[in-house]
């Protein structure tokens, strides 16, 4: 209990402490921020010791009433997936603070407050088990990230910051409407509930026609965050303009909020709708994989190249999620960690180069290995991990997601995997092109002749990440076993729903309901609660739900 509370609130406490510090004490502020971030990391390690991977329930569950009349509570807890992502967050944040020592030169006080606030929000999203609390944390993240891009960013920072904010905001507000809708549905006679655990039981009984719309409202919000093609256009702008630490957080953790949400909310709350939309989202994922890779291939700006590689890599995660098999989901979870580490490290490396030369043009570099041998080795780890070389972490994740997608009965075809594999090849191409262009070849540019190699501070940023790149690559079970029970549960639920749907498909010989205009009628005045009660009546206690559910759904549509 205490470990979770500490992990969540230490960053906020840190931000509060910095608020009352004198802004001239630059060093003091920096080390306070680092201290709090490290303390948070230590606290999160304690979570690991008390965690039972075999238990599928949420652990460290804490519940305090917040808004009693609407059953909104401060409910937090973690399962294997959230634990891994919380650890990723608390691990990456101190490293970004170290890199901020170099990258951030003015207004330190506001900056470190924003950074810690951001960490608070991200941990909050991963541990919240209440839809409204989740939403609050989700939105809290926007403000610090907006400031970090807008104040400390590059030349087009204002455009990038506003674009980032508006894209995320529109998605999340539609999600809010959906949260309210299922809250009223799930509240039954009590009126409203935001309790995730209740909703997880009740939401799958929502008629498919409505589930589809709710799924889309959630999915849009998460797809923008991921970002899934075609909602990705904010990402290159935000990445290129953000300062190095901002990019590291953005790629390392922020994008995982979207994929986390897809599993936690879309898959778990709307299994039937997830099955219905799996081909669509998998297709978008595969398009993202190839599109991101192709665009990355032609970038001359190193940072943009890494940014587009994110679009490509996140495609694998989404493909793994919507394969909805245990392997695919496990691959998605481990790939979230992998991408956070390896792409985070790539951005750190780009930042290190930028600090020295103040340019990110690929053509400006070449032959860096002669002057920065340590850097060449560490960048090599990040590049090969990102490209999915066996023995490093990227391989494990990509392999599992593709295996899952191949086996998936829901996707039912190997086509997705075939195209995704093309993405792997392209990834090797653009990453090696980048590595080759920066590190090897003759060191012709006179400005590059006397570049200093990595400082101690930079080694402290890169070496810890490298350790994990190798660890996950060689012995992934340490991490995979944490989330296995949960992912198995998710996939088995989906499988059950899928079997019911296909049985029902044979029995009634009606096609699966499409997104029909009639299903839009839920937008018009209707007594949601009456529908819900009717739904409860129609569902027999022992279940064989889907057929019944389909009937009541049709009845409801006729009304």
């Amino acid at each position, binding site marked *: 209990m205490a470990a979770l509370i500490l992990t969540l609130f230490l960053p906020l406490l840190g931000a509060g402490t910095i608020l009352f510090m004198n802004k001239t004490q630059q060093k003091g502020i920096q080390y306070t921020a680092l201290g709090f971030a490290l303390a948070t990391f230590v606290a999160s390690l304690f979570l690991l010791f008390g965690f039972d991977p075999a238990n599928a329930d949420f652990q460290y569950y804490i519940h305090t009433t917040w808004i009693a009349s609407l059953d909104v509570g401060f409910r937090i807890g973690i399962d294997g997936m959230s634990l891994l992502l919380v650890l990723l967050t608390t691990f990456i944040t101190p490293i970004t603070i170290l890199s901020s020592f170099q990258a951030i030169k003015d207004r330190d006080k506001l900056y470190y407050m924003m950074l810690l606030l951001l960490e608070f929000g991200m941990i909050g999203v991963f541990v919240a088990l209440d839809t409204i609390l989740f939403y609050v944390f989700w939105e809290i993240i926007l403000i610090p990230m907006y400031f970090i891009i807008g104040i400390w960013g590059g030349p087009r920072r204002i455009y990038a910051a506003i674009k980032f904010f*508006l894209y995320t905001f529109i998605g999340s507000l539609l999600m809010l409407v959906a949260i309210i809708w299922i809250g009223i549905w799930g509240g039954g006679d009590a009126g*409203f509930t935001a309790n995730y655990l209740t909703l997880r039981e009740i939401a799958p009984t929502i008629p498919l026609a409505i589930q589809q719309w709710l799924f889309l409202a959630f999915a849009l919000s998460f797809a923008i965050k991921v970002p899934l093609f075609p909602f990705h256009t904010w990402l290159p702008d935000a990445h290129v303009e953000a300062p190095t630490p901002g990019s590291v957080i953005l790629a390392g953790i922020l994008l995982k909020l979207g994929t986390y949400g897809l599993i936690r909310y879309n898959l778990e709350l709307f299994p039937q709708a997830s099955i219905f939309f799996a081909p669509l989202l998998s297709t978008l994922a595969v398009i993202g994989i190839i599109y991101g890779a192709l665009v990355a291939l032609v970038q001359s700006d190193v940072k943009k190249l890494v940014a587009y590689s994110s679009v490509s890599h996140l495609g694998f995660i989404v493909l793994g999620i919507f394969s909805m098999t245990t392997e695919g989901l496990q691959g998605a979870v481990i790939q979230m960690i992998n991408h956070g580490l390896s792409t985070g490290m790539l951005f750190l490396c780009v930042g290190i180069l930028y600090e020295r030369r103040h340019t990110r043009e690929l053509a400006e570099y070449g032959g860096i290995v002669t002057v920065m041998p340590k850097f060449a080795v560490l960048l090599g780890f990040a590049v090969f991990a990102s490209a999915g070389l066996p023995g490093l972490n990227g391989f494990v994740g990509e392999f599992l997601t593709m295996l899952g997608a191949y086996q998936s009965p829901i996707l039912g075809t190997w086509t997705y995997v075939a195209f995704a594999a093309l993405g792997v090849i392209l990834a090797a191409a653009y990453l090696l092109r980048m590595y080759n262009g920066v590190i090897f070849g003759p060191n012709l540019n006179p400005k590059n002749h006397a570049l200093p190699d990595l400082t101690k501070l930079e080694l402290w940023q890169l070496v810890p990440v490298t350790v994990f790149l190798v660890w996950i690559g060689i012995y992934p079970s340490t991490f995979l076993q944490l989330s296995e029970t949960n992912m198995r549960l998710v996939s088995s639920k989906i499988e059950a729903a899928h079997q019911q749907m296909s049985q029902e498909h044979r029995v009634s010989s009606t096609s699966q309901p499409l997104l029909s205009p009639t299903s839009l009628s839920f937008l018009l005045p209707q007594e949601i609660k009456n529908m819900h009660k009717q739904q409860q009546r129609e569902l027999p206690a022992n279940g064989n739900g889907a057929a019944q559910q389909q009937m009541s759904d049709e009845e409801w549509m006729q009304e």
Partner: protein
Amino acid sequence: MSRDIALWGALPIYFISAWAVISLLVDAFSKNSRVSFHFAWIGLLLTAIAAVGSFPYEGAAFSGMIATGHYAAFFDVLFAIGGLLTVLAAHPYLERLQFELDEFYSLTLFAIAGMMLIAHANNLLVLFIGIEVMSISFYILAGYFRNKTLSVEAGIKYFLLGAFMSGFLMYGIALVYGATASLHYGAILHATTTGSLSFPTLLIIGATFLVIALSFKAALFPFHFWAPDVYQGAPTVVTGLMSTAGKAAAFAAFLPLAFVFLPQLQIKLQLLLAIIAALSMLYGNIVAITQQNIKRMLAYSSIAHAGYILIGIVAASPDGFAAVTFYATVYLFMQLGAFVLASVLEQQYGRHLEIQDYKGLYQRHPLLAGLMAVFMFSLTGVPPLAGFFGKYYLFVAAIESGFVWLAILGVVASVISAYFYLGLVVAMFFHTAPESSESSVPAGTAGITLAISTLMTFLFGFFPSLLLHVAQQLF
């Protein structure tokens, strides 16, 4: 008990009216405007305390003309606090602009008295009197800077249109009386629900006229045309009061009327109100994008906020009405805070009010810029600030009543509003200050206003149930 109600329940109304009249005398005998200022804020503070005390005395007094207790008491507190915050902010503002006249404070007191009478109204004529007392005070306050063209224009414009709308209001009242043979809320409700109407059509027309008149007071689309010019020309602190407490007063009148008319006219009125709400939200926010003047920007956005509040009335459920009360309250603090902050930075009448004047404010006044950012984020509806929960409750009420489309439009409007609210944050934080900008701004007692507004914006964001719990008791 009925004596208690007449005595204690209506005490805030007696008190503020008497205090306003005495304030005129104080003005006449004292040459020092500082005395009037102290007299006014003490009176408003005492009124607020009296109103809190009157909360349990629910009932009707004066042959049922005036309702007391719960609902009225709640809005009494809100208006008194709104007045108090305005007066505290007005003193340094008017002093700086060298135009501090005693009448300003008396007029503010009268405006607050009118608003409170609106909240107490249990009879259409009392409502009319309340609206007139409030409006006439506002006409004068809007034209308060009598040597400034814009201010005078604001006063005249507001007066002409307002007088016209008073005609609508009166005509609506007459038609309702024609249909139901009563001006008393309870009797009208009785007549409409039992169906003993002599001319049902008259009721519809009358109710529509009332909606139009109140929409004008709340600056809802398409009855908003006065708002931008008046809000821009009026003294900034007055604009703050008009756009918050004045708007809340219009909704305080709306709510009991919704009770009275909705049972009979549900479908027709609900749809009409829903359309007004939707158009207000979209129009206000879209037009606000192009504004360069912060007062005009806030004016247009206030049209949108009135639209949000109206959602709760459209929902026509206890939850919806509670949401209206909640939003009106939090809106008062965040919008008044924003206007007062603008008034602090306004060194001369009408100067430093362009958005570009806010460029680099963070470097010059980090605290003021931070507070403004808080208000802007709250107005946008970003959690965990109070504005978010206001919108959240309204959307919950709308979806519960089946108006999902209205909630979705509200959401879209919020995204649009993010653009211009953030535009101000961009100017304050992301741009650097031009060379020639003053460094020190004496906030004086306006600092108290800002502190309270900020505190409330956070408090009702972190602990929304404090306010919601009270709001739910009212209905």
